């Protein structure tokens, strides 16, 4: 059972329940509690009476005279009549359009995911500071190769191939075109900006000099294609969102 309300603790009474009772909206336990408060607490009883009076007075508020005529002029009507844009996109972005939003969300998500897949691995592969663990052995191998080449004369007992490769690398960087002639097809593929990486790969694998570079080039091409497609999807998705917003805002 409810504790019997006391007039002395009006501050702790549930005034919202009294307001609900004044609107005849209180039901069940709330109604019982509010009725008990109103019956036993003089302030709650006064509040209840005043809220009922206020509701009555609000209902009796007189209408306020309008300041102007709201009829439409012919030029208003001309401006507001559905034009080609409104006819085309009239329902675009409205509650009746259940197609464009999921499509926009899907395209944007695919575009973002594709961009991340296409760009991040590329960044990890070719970025110096951002190189990932997968590239670390290749870089280390190249460093070792260069170091070996530099220290070979001093050490005297270095493997025979190391100075040769180092010379080749130096010739590449020095732009000596004649040094390219004796190189094989696989070695020629190592020319270009990714040359050092290819040489590192070659040093790591020990066989098939051109294969690793070819796969890097393929990956690079595939990644850029993915990035282009994903970027397009992202732009189309965002454009759909923009179109929906424009249609809702200006399409009426």
């Amino acid at each position, binding site marked *: 059972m409810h504790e019997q309300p006391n007039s002395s603790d009006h501050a702790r009474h549930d005034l*919202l329940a009294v307001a609900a009772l004044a*609107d005849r909206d209180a039901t069940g336990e709330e109604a019982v509690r509010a009725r008990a408060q109103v019956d036993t607490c003089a302030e709650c009883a006064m509040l209840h009476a*005043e809220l009922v*009076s*206020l509701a009555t007075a609000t209902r009796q508020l007189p209408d*306020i005279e309008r300041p102007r005529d709201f009829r*439409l002029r012919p030029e*208003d009507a001309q401006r507001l009549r559905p034009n080609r844009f*409104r006819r085309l996109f*009239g329902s675009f972005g409205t509650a009746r359009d259940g197609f464009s939003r999921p499509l926009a969300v899907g395209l944007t998500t695919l575009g973002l995911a594709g961009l991340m897949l296409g760009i991040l691995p590329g960044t990890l592969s070719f970025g110096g500071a951002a190189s990932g663990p997968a590239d670390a052995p290749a870089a280390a191998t190249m460093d070792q190769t260069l170091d070996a080449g530099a220290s070979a004369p001093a050490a005297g007992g270095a493997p025979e191939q190391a100075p040769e490769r180092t010379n080749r690398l130096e010739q590449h960087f020095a732009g000596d075109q004649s040094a390219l002639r004796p190189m094989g097809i696989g070695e020629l593929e190592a020319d270009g900006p990714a040359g050092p990486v290819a040489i590192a790969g070659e040093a790591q694998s020990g066989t098939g000099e051109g294969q690793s570079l070819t796969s890097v080039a393929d990956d690079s091409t595939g990644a850029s294609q993915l990035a282009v497609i994903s970027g397009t999807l992202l732009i189309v998705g965002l454009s759909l969102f923009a179109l929906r917003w424009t249609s809702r805002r200006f399409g009426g």
Partner: protein
Amino acid sequence: MLDSPDLRIAVRRHPLPVERDLRSTTVPDDPVQRRDLILLERARDGDLDAFNDLVTLYQDQLYALVVRMVPDRDQAADAVQEGFFSAFRNLHTFRGGSVKAWLNRICVNAAMDTQRARRRRPSQPYPELEDDSWQPPAGEDADPERSAVLAERTRALGAALASITDDQRTAIVLYDIEGYDYAEIAEMTGVSLGTVKSRIHRGRLALRDRLEGRMDLFRG
């Protein structure tokens, strides 16, 4: 047969091509609704006078509603005008039922947009809503003292209504002045039933706080 509420016909002045969306409307028994539907169908066909007839019929009532929600005469007038513009633009979206309720809904939305725009901008409180047009009922039995009390009560209540939150005021105006029920207000304002009740009850308590010391105007 003709009086059947399920009978659906297209209320149009001219026959339309078959391929066009007839969007037929249930013929109501209420002559006012029937008149409204005929005007609306004519307006859909491009008859501006028919639309303006609807405006003439409802502009007083809609302004009275909106000016209580947006207690600034100029902003309220702009909101009502925007509501009628929106109604004209969206004549094709009317799906039957009461034209009056449809116009009410559009103008309530316009008023809520005005409230939101006002909230986004730092601005002064609403100016006191003086209603010079209202005069106490005249007659032989009109008591000058009572008329003065009524006028003062109207002014005090209007000022108190303008000082509570937009949400509370909207809910109270729709409930008390327009007579909508909780569910209708919830649908109109896009909130839950419990929120509507809470806004009305808290709004009434806030009104009573604002009018503390003047409640004698409302007794008796």
